[in-house]
């Protein structure tokens, strides 16, 4: 089998993959206002989210990527829990202005406002979940796209700290329920973090204790 056969077969395999086919068919979003209205409506109706997540960290200078898996919980207005299970147990809880990290049985807590970076990341996450991220044009300039099954929004940092280290954020929403299914952060240095959400349960009862670390 020569190299042209290998390339041809590889292309056939890739074209059979819906995601790849979809990515070839990215076009500008036809009705941005309708999308924004629907996201806003869905986020207003969302009181809580429980989900699995897979995080892939790609470093620009090395082929190695780090894949982590875990559970994600969100409860209105500003409670977040990132529970990393594989390959290491690691817990991040955001409860209002307090930020907790449990790492190897050690707990670090600090005021979220004391760290610009954590404040920014927290703002992105919460505003992506509530749909507010598209409203504040002073922070990000959005560009709207769609495929057959997804809405894709590219956010370019408009000012501030974010612009220094972040090239863009890509948010992918489901066309079925307008929920966030993937978040991609591309840094200026070429590093990239993909977080994919799966097995989502909306509006389930999440006890407040989930957002405390003992």
């Amino acid at each position, binding site marked *: 089998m020569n190299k042209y056969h290998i390339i041809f077969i590889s292309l056939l395999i890739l074209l059979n993959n819906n995601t790849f086919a979809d990515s070839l068919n990215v076009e500008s979003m036809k009705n941005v206002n309708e999308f924004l209205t629907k996201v806003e409506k869905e986020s207003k109706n969302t009181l809580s989210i429980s989900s699995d997540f897979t995080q892939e960290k790609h*470093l620009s200078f*090395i082929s*190695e990527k780090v894949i982590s898996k875990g559970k994600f919980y969100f409860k209105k207005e500003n409670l977040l829990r990132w529970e990393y299970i594989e390959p290491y147990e*690691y817990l991040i809880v955001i409860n209002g202005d307090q930020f907790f990290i449990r790492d190897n049985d050690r707990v*670090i807590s600090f005021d979220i406002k004391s760290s610009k970076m954590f404040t920014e990341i927290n703002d992105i996450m919460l505003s992506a979940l509530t749909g507010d991220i598209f409203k504040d044009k002073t922070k990000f300039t959005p560009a709207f796209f769609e495929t057959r099954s997804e809405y894709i929004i590219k956010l370019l940092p408009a000012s501030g700290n974010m612009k220094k280290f972040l090239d863009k954020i890509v948010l992918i929403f489901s066309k079925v329920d307008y929920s966030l299914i993937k978040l991609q952060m591309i840094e200026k*240095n070429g590093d990239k973090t993909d977080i994919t959400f799966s097995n989502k349960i909306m509006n389930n009862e999440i006890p407040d204790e989930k957002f405390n670390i003992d």
Partner: protein
Amino acid sequence: MKNLISISFLFALTSCSSIYENMSLVGVKKFEDIDINPILSEEFNSAVFAVEFEVAGNYFSGTLFIKQTSTLVYKSTIINNAGMNIISFKFDNRKFSLISCLEELRNKYIIKTFEDDFRNILYMPGNSSLVNLLKNEENSNIYMITDSGSNLYYFLDINFNIYQLDLVRQSERVVSYIFSYNINFIISQIDINHYNFPLDIKLTLTKME
């Protein structure tokens, strides 16, 4: 209280210096003439370590990536277990440059300590260095090199691998690097202990290519 501190300091100084004073000089050679294996193989392309460190009461754990982008040019990043960049830096033939750093670590002493530690791990002393060959009471081979006012003591095992490196300044041990190797003589663990700065680092190799 002041006297107690002074006495403790003198005791520490005396006990420290005695380790190095009990060594006997058996010769002096040029660096290129001695048998010594580099800490990391010079041929390695990339290495991944699990990393844990504690600095000024803040504990971090995550992954350290080191890539040799060209001969003796290294790029390195530490990310925490949530994938956030803690620190990224580059060495180009011993010259350090900081690429990015978490706000909590943005302190000149912390950055300088990282710089010195990783330089000592990644690079062997310059070829023009003169090396004092020493023996201690256990008859171990110890090579001592003076560099920028500090003495670097390389403790070697029978395979000429460095199992400990001490940096000594004015008879005081400043930092110890303890190295462990696997059965193929490839580095498996590095413990870095600072005696005058609250930073300890533990690196455990997970992959090397």
